[in-house]
């Protein structure tokens, strides 16, 4: 893991007590996957969280089950910045495969806690080394060899606890939460932590400046991953049919949804008010969900890259035949299988226009776990109101990593089930209706559900050419009419989707940034740093949905330079802005910042880019 282009930090000359750095560090644990370090990492994260310090946890893992390198990074930051930080301050080096490189890539002044057998201390003289005999210490906890391996992970929690002054009671509390009902596991893990603490006290001399102190920044907050938030949102959105096919990083959406539904969505007779189906592939998953939406269920599926490609044909059917459906796309690095366990925003254009022919889709762009929850339920309202597939584009960073957040807000309005005619409505209308007619002038037609007890309720759904009465036709007039209405329906959608969030000064600064999704924390951090370190003000427009609303053009035209931040190679949102607004955007205004290493977005990259650009602009 070497993307160490960050500024080298000033390191204090040895012998002089360094100024303590309080509540501002990135801890990275380097292990092999399958070694069971995840619980230790979560305990560490939760202990810091309960000390009231803003934290976030990111897992950088391989597409593999066991034996390959994995890094878990915890960033604690008193100001609340928890985006990825490129330089690591505290490394826990347990993986012989990567230890040397991991150490070499550290900035001067960092600290390394490591298995002493790795003999890393000879590698650098500008970082602090804290060796420990992990296996020996674990052997004190238990004689059982298999358990010893697992508990070695808890030893570093103890070591870090002592070195960084983490509150032991919070560590113990986090262990209790982690191993909930298993008393024996709680005891063993506590012992391992105690042994780690004792070893640090007796054998290590604190030489680095990093330390943690209790704050009060997490009151009322929770720690959750975006996919869990999405699943919860879906449950409170009334999801009744969820179909899927396993794929990283989206699997945990429906897996966690299943857990919630089992618990909270049984009728009084104990029977399920939902159906979850693990389909044979994504074609079947989306076909089932689409037909369930057609028949009146609140239907959804979740997938990533390759799965989205497979769903393409059905999505076009959903668009043209006007069927509600919610699809979560938890983006990962493509093309093809790409880097399946790395993050990207690389499916914006392909999802927005998924399928052949003229198609365009409503896409929601959550930037936080709160928005994953909110869009989780709102997506159903939009899909049913607009009678069309609605996408929610999250990504691996947002979906699988762990974020501290304010609790979610319960939906503030009843469900919108859209324009569905009942038997009574049909009677009132004299027994007939036109499935694809624009009655209300908003280009959204009326539908009936199969099973509606009225001879006039039935209509025929097809992906081939059809007229307002849903009859088969190859008439060019009918084709053009229906396609033009779909275009107008998209204009209705433009008004309904969540508008961008704009944070701007009065009067507007000449410099702006447009970003979306998981780039948000890095953008906010970069704006603060630019303001404080370089006196650069940068207004910010965060897209929350496609199609783009009118305020986006206003934001751009009011400024001289607007950075468009894409986590993809081709500047996909930049392309969209250009396609949408054409020469209404003066040339030279849009600047494209593209980050596509597969790592989550970090603030430094933005700071560097903007600083250089602004120097040039002066």
């Amino acid at each position, binding site marked *: 893991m070497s993307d160490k282009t960050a500024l080298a930090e000033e390191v204090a000359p040895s012998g002089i007590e360094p100024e303590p750095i309080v509540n501002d560090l990135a801890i990275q644990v380097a292990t092999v996957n399958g070694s069971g370090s995840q619980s230790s990492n979560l305990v560490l994260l939760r202990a810091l969280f309960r000390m009231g310090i803003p934290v976030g946890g990111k897992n950088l893992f391989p597409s593999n089950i066991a034996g390959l390198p994995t890094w878990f990074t915890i960033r604690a930051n008193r100001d609340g910045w928890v985006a990825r930080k490129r330089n690591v301050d505290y490394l826990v080096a347990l993986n012989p495969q990567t230890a040397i490189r991991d150490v070499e890539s550290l900035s001067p002044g960092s600290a390394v806690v490591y298995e002493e057998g790795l003999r890393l201390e000879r590698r650098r003289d500008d970082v602090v080394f804290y060796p420990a005999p992990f296996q020996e210490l674990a052997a004190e906890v238990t004689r059982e060899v298999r358990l010893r391996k697992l508990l070695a992970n808890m030893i570093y929690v103890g070591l870090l606890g002592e070195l960084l002054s983490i509150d032991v009671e919070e560590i113990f509390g986090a262990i209790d939460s982690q191993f909930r009902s298993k008393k024996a596991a709680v005891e063993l893990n506590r012992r391992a932590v105690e042994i780690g603490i004792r070893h640090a006290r007796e054998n290590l001399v604190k030489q680095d400046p990093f330390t943690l102190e209790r704050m009060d920044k997490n009151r009322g907050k*929770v*720690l*959750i991953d975006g996919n869990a938030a999405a699943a*919860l949102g879906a*449950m*409170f*959105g*009334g999801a*009744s*049919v969820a*179909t899927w096919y396993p794929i990283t990083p989206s699997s945990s959406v429906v897996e966690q949804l299943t857990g919630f539904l089992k618990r*909270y*969505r049984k*009728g009084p*007779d*104990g*029977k*399920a*008010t*939902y*159906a979850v*189906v693990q*389909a*044979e*592939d994504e*074609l*079947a998953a*989306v*076909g*089932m*969900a*689409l*037909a*369930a*939406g*057609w*028949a*009146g*269920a609140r239907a959804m599926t979740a997938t990533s890259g390759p799965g989205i490609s497979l769903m393409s044909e*059905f999505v076009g*059917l959903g668009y043209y035949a006007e069927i509600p459906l919610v699809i979560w796309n938890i983006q990962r690095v493509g093309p093809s299988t790409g880097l399946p366990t790395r993050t990207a925003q690389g499916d914006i254009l392909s999802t927005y226009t998924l399928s052949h022919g003229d198609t365009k889709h409503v896409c929601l762009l959550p930037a936080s776990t709160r928005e994953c929850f909110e869009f989780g339920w709102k997506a159903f309202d939009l899909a049913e109101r607009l009678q069309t597939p609605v996408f929610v584009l999250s990504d691996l960073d947002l979906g699988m990593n762990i974020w501290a957040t304010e609790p*979610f807000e*319960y*939906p503030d309005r*009843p*469900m919108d089930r859209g324009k569905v005619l009942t038997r009574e409505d049909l009677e009132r209308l004299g027994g007939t209706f036109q499935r694809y007619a624009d009655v209300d002038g908003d280009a959204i037609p009326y539908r*009936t*559900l*199969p*099973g*509606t007890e009225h*001879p006039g*309720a*039935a*209509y*025929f*759904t*097809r*992906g*081939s050419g059809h007229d307002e009465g849903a009859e088969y036709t190859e008439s060019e007039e009918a084709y053009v009419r229906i396609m033009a209405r779909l275009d107008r329906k998209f204009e209705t959608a433009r008004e309904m989707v969540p508008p961008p969030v704009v944070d701007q000064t009065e009067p507007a600064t000449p410099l702006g940034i447009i970003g979306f999704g998981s780039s948000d924390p890095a953008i906010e951090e970069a704006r603060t740093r630019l303001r404080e370190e370089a006196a650069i003000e940068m207004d910010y427009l965060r897209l929350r949905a496609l199609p783009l609303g009118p305020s986006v053009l206003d934001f751009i035209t009011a400024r001289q330079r607007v950075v468009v931040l894409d986590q993809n190679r081709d500047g996909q949102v930049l392309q969209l802005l250009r396609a949408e607004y054409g020469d209404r955007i003066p040339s030279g205004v849009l600047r494209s910042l593209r980050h596509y290493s597969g790592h989550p977005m970090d603030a430094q990259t933005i700071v560097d880019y903007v600083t250089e650009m602004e120097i040039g602009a002066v």
Partner: protein
Amino acid sequence: MPTPDASSRPRKVNRLGLTPSDYKGKPSTLCKGCGHDAISSQLIRAFFESDVRPHQVAKLSGIGCSSKTPAYFLNHSHGFNAVHGRMPSVATGAVLANRRLVAVGVSGDGDTASIGIGQFVHLVRRNLPLIYIVENNGVYGLTKGQFSATADENAALRSGEVNRLPNIDLCGMAIELGATYVARSFAGDPKQLVALLRGALAHNGTAVLDILSPCVTFNNHAGSTKSYTWGKDNEEPIHILDFVPAMDQIEVEYEEGTDQEVQLHDGSWVRLRKLERGYDPTDRRAAQELVLEANEKNLFLTGLLYLDTSKRTFLDSLELCDEPLALLSEDQLRPPPEILDEVVASYR
């Protein structure tokens, strides 16, 4: 003319007070004489005679000449002509959303045995309540006559092209995969077809009907094993089949001794008048053997090949509530705020 029994006597009005024309569809646009149209007519008759409420029916299909036919029967039922080979997933979604729907899926041999074979396999395995009709003509009709995977080995196209690959036997596969009602029939045998369709309507589970349905335009010549003449000459029923609706039982003359009867879920009976071979359709191994044997001897066996009324359906496996998911109210779908508080608290 003497009528054989009450159940097959054409009635002008059924128990719902509906006439056969209430079950009609739009005029067909298929070629004159296409086997698929014959099947649509028998579907109309079967739904009429079985007193099925048209609004309760959902017609699902893939893409192909065969898949167009849901527009040509049951005008008062919702229809969904989806994408090529994916009728099974569409049927699954519709039935999950509304378990009260009577789902009838129409597919072709290209639709099912090639592009959609994966979905066919998994649908059958789940035992979703669905009547799955394969209108089997051994060719891709709509794309102008290429061989399909059910074309018999050594069968010839009119162009002279010969199929050198073995055929896929969908009935054999369906039995293997756990379908609970497996039948083979011929578009030119209306009586048997109606009885099989009515049996399928009374069955609870996946009913696979593989129906030889000649394509008069591309595959009805000498040398084709999917033509009308071949079907007529080679059809060998394994039994003569009657369908006896539960309500008709008292009216029916009971001929003991020669029959085997199997009761279906709604109380109706399928009565199988044994031919010489004395075939028992509830014996899975025997059914598999029969299909293998027929393939080896190039026999076209028709009738109810296999029936299992005990296996649970997909809806039972999912422990779905009785009310259709599509009709649940907001109270049933959205848990109260206290639940959100409870879940959120577990993430502290």
